[in-house]
């Protein structure tokens, strides 16, 4: 009985492993095959001859470096702007009582529930009127704040005892000194969580850069790669998978290094 239970446990575990992991292995394996080998049926598990040049072909078939630069600028700028707006707003909501506070905090909560799928059309029209379509700010500005970050950081700031701040103020510290020297060190774990979630979300973002761009100028990697593949006839699966591996690698690296932290962050966020 025990053996049956143990072996069925093992079989199910193996099944989970194969279902979720094998597709990625398949992606990598396909990215190293020749075009001819990808078109063999039944397929081969491993490439007969590892075609690393597929990666060069993939990169040269599109403005890859341009897409990569856009992705990096958009992702990093978004994170930095979110840090600034989140810290200042969370500090105000945690430490001050002011007229309109409740309404403003309500607006922050509402903004968490308004998806880009509802706003993209009018924001596209608005940016078209401002004549800034196909520029990077259109991909950054709407995401310059994080309602979730403000919510988390407000809790952190509230947990800091008032005595510490009063003591600092008696020493004639200015508001900014209090934020920098007292509040920020306590906020670092929260900011790391926010930074990870925003990095993954922004790097992966496909919808927004797709609907807000009409040419390659401001396209980020995910949109750029898909647009280039669609522009071809779409049967070069070996280079398509090579591009795909390039897209997944940064996420894979972060996942390998900060896996526990990422899983905790997503559990805490309840998913956005």
């Amino acid at each position, binding site marked *: 009985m025990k053996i049956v239970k143990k072996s069925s446990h093992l079989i199910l575990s193996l099944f989970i492993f194969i279902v979720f992991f094998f597709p990625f292995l398949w992606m990598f394996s396909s990215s190293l095959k020749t075009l001819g080998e990808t078109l063999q049926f039944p397929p081969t598990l491993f490439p007969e001859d590892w075609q690393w040049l597929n990666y060069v072909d993939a990169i040269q078939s599109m403005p890859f470096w341009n897409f990569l630069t856009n992705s990096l600028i958009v992702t990093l700028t978004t994170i930095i702007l979110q840090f600034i707006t989140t810290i200042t707003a969370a500090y105000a909501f945690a430490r001050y009582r002011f007229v309109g506070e409740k309404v403003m905090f309500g607006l922050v909560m509402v903004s968490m529930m308004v998806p880009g799928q509802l*706003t993209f059309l009018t924001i596209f029209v608005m940016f078209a009127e401002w004549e800034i379509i196909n520029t990077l700010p259109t991909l950054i500005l709407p995401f310059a704040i994080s309602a979730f970050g403000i919510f988390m950081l407000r809790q952190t700031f509230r947990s800091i005892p008032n005595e510490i701040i009063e003591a600092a103020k008696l020493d004639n510290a200015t508001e900014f000194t209090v934020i920098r020297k007292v509040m920020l060190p306590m906020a670092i774990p929260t900011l790391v969580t926010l930074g990870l979630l925003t990095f993954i979300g922004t790097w992966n973002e496909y919808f927004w850069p797709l609907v807000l761009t009409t040419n390659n100028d401001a396209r980020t990697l995910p949109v750029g790669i898909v647009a280039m593949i669609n522009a071809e006839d779409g049967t070069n699966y070996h280079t398509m998978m090579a591009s795909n591996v390039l897209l997944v690698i940064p996420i894979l690296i972060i996942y390998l290094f900060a896996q526990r932290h990422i899983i905790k962050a*997503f559990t805490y966020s309840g998913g956005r």
Partner: protein
Amino acid sequence: MKRKLFPYFLVLPTMIVIILFNVYPILRMLYQSFHQWNMINDMQFIGFDNFIKLASDKVFLQSLGNTFYFVFWNVLLCTGLGLLLAVFLQKNTRFNRFLQSISFFPYVVSLASVSLLWSWIMNKDYGLLNYVISFFGITSQDWLGSPGLAMNSIILISVWKSVGFNVLIFISALQRIPKYIYEAAILDNSGSFQFFRKITLPMISPTLFFITIINIINSFKIFETVQILTRGGPLNSTRTIVYEIYEEGTLFFNVGYASAMGVVLLVILAILTIIYFKTQSKRVQYQ
């Protein structure tokens, strides 16, 4: 005086972004939905005409139906399989944590990557999936190209991507159940299914409810897989609300009409969000 203004100064950037990119676009969408506008001519007020047209627009109604079909199956499978896998992996061992990270990885990968990967796996002539099912004596299928199958394939891909997130949330709920309850049940000698039904399920029911709502809200936004893999086809069988808004608005520039579709989605999401906030306040109480 300066001190009194300071908090306003601190929240100003956040408020500008929210008003410019959340509040204003929603209000403007409502306004546009009562107008006819193609971004070139002047806006023309037409009252409820867009909505009346929507009610008899066969393609829109089909995309609404497709979206509900997707939402139903995607939510049922993500939640159901997520709970099953979580129960299976709930014991906090290294091996289980490893399997959990494997099952969660698709969730942190871009939908663009996932779609490209599955377009290859589901290729009708050379795809891995057709090879795998041939072992079970099933003939090759045109996964994304046949009207009867395409939406189910999209659901399969979505479940594969998101089930790991459900596992994550369920495991953290399961591990919060106090140990003494398990010990008492073992003393009682109650069977494992009965134990699950009588103890585990009631204990995690707030989480179950909460995650179901989140799954529903997220499922209504289905777009990327459709746009990359099928473009709404074949025969409009995978056309969804957001895809329809996208096509009508940014490809055909019927901004007024697309805004009216947006209002329909807004109403659906608003109802769900109200339910979400109500359940979330309950969830805090249970913990």
